[in-house]
């Protein structure tokens, strides 16, 4: 029953979905790498950026691709605000308070969306990125392909930013040793805010790309957010390359186990693979610590 064609399709779908997971994970990775805080409101922030893309399309006819820069800016500002209002105050608090505060933010955002826009499903119809292409019998969705491309570009840009630019270097310094960094004149407060802003802006990118092909509801961020954390953890907290590899791995495991074993258990396999990797290599595939 399983032909080479089916296998090829499975791998293709898995890779595409994996890149999309990686795209969502990139912002999380940024924030984690910087200050060791896991943003549990990650998925819900993405949900809001998807809604933004939808409303810009629905009310003003702006295609999500065009709206993306605007959404990035809005999300950047949001990220900075979240840092100053919430995160800054829990930096010194126990890890649990950090986790719970972002969790509370996530819940608030989710139900804010329901309050504002009702629980109805929305979708952008006929965006510029639409349709599918057929490569030797393997179907590849155009918006998914574009999202994967954007994911790869985003990761490359982020990698260069962190490792090759001065600002990125400052971010790295702050993440390694806050006191030493401040001795060198780097304002850690500003760096953290910048990190959150960039992380949130990345979410804006993923939200805008997802809006091209995914139905939007207030609950849409839940599972995607969870998978993003697992992707970052799988790859190793603190590693940008790791987050990308983690996302792609999850996409492939999901697709392969879903088609070859049983779709009902595909997420069980995803989480199972995470556990297996992390038991053998506690710092994740590419992790530093």
């Amino acid at each position, binding site marked *: *029953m399983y032909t080479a064609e089916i296998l090829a*399709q499975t791998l293709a779908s898995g890779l595409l979905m994996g890149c999309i997971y990686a795209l969502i994970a990139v912002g999380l990775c940024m924030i984690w790498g910087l200050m060791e805080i896991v943003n549990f409101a990650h998925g819900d922030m993405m949900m809001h950026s998807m809604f933004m893309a939808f409303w810009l399309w629905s009310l003003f006819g702006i295609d999500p691709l065009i709206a993306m820069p605007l959404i990035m800016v809005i999300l950047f500002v949001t990220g900075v605000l979240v840092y100053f209002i919430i995160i800054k105050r829990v930096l010194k608090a126990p890890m649990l308070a950090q986790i719970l505060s972002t969790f509370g933010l996530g819940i608030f955002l989710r139900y804010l969306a329901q309050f504002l826009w*009702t*629980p*109805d499903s929305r979708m952008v119809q006929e965006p510029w990125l639409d349709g599918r292409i057929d490569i030797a019998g393997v*179907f590849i969705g155009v918006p*998914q392909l574009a999202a994967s491309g954007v994911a790869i570009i985003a990761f490359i840009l982020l990698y260069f930013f962190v490792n090759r630019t001065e600002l990125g270097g400052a971010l790295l310094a702050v993440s390694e040793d806050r006191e030493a960094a401040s001795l060198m004149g780097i304002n850690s407060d500003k760096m953290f805010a910048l990190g959150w802003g960039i992380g949130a802006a990345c979410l804006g990118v993923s939200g805008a790309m997802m809006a091209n092909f995914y*139905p939007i509801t207030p*609950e849409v961020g839940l599972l995607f957010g969870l998978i993003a954390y697992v992707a970052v953890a799988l790859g190793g907290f603190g590693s940008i390359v790791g987050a990308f590899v983690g996302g792609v791995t999850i996409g492939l495991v999901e697709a392969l186990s*879903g088609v070859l074993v049983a779709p009902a258990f595909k997420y069980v396999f995803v989480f199972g693979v995470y556990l297996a990797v992390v038991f053998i290599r506690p710092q994740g595939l590419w992790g530093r610590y």
Partner: protein
Amino acid sequence: MKTRKFCATVLIITLSLVLTGMPVCADNPKEIKIGAIYPMTGGAAQAGWDSRQAIEVALEIINTTKHKDLGIPLADTEGLPNFGGAKISVVFADHQGKPDIGMGEADRLISQEKVAVLTGCFHSNVTLTASQVAERKQIPFYNFESSSPRLHQRGFKWFFRSTPHDETFSAAIFGFLKYLKEKHGAKVQTVAILHEDTLYGKDSGTIENDLAIKAGYKVLAVIPYRRAATSLTAEVQRLKALNPDVLLPTCYAADAILLAKNMKDLDFNPPIVVAQGTGQIDPSFVETLGASMVEGISSRNAIGPDLMESIPKLKKANALFRERTKAAGKERDFSGPSVRCFQGMMALAEALSRAKSLSPEDIRKAIQETDLKTDQLVVPWRGIKFAPDGQNMFGDAVCVQWQGGKMVTVWPEQFATQKAIYPIPKWADRK
């Protein structure tokens, strides 16, 4: 200092407990209170919202004479005519999709709000626990739209359900398949079932599997999927590899949309798709996907919206529903669940009117004696009459199909307004 903080804490705790214990609405004589427990938040919040709007439209019809030309019982009188014009009021509660909250709310509505009847809960597993409370407290529980067959098979005395359940609905699906086979020469030999993995999907999938085997079809696979999944490509790929003649999906709204998208992405073209309602009959299905993408997809339903033209009462009621939902934020037509909710509420009010009393036993008796005929209903059922187990024996279902962006009734033949499309167009051939 410490004692002050301690006292403050104690005060907050006491206040919370006491305030929670206080009834929300003031009691009013000459009024019958009904408790309605629905999912007002969470994944099914849209359904809860719809049900609330449907009930409130019904209340307006019952309690006032604004719509006396509707032609159904209680429309032309103010309040309940046999009960001195008593009005009906409804207290809504949110169960958030959780059976234990449903249970708590049932307790609260009965003992504190002193409701005469309970209704709800959309989710079959919450209806299960809430109606258990009602049974224990000997208060009638009148269910409008939960579809799990288990609910009326518990030997309860106080549980009533006006809506047909999954077995009736699924029978409609297979009646439709038989019709396609006989009248359209369709090839119906192999069947694949895809269902979401909560109670709704599981029940549906199990019943469909049984009925398919009974009808002599070969069930190629029964695939459960995680509701609100991130993607259904793995599921669709498996289905595509199996190449069934018929696909029977059971999905909630967001998943139905995702499924259609993934089917198009992977070019999966089953010749027949008949859904178990909810997702595929939700207005958002055609709104988000557009007419050409939903073309040919069928589903069982309580009614077809096109019947709103042929059944004048339904048309009028739907107009009222549109008005109300528009005022409340998002204009919508009746959907399968919400029209059953509306009809149930009207039938319940009719029973309350005959009961002429607030005593639970009188109400229960009046409900049990309900005997409404087709011309007293807005939905095309043979009637509402309860068997001893509390299930309405005369509820029917139809099958609808999306054609040209409209949901039309295609089965049974006496209600069909259009001929069914078979086979449904392939993705490549659409628009």
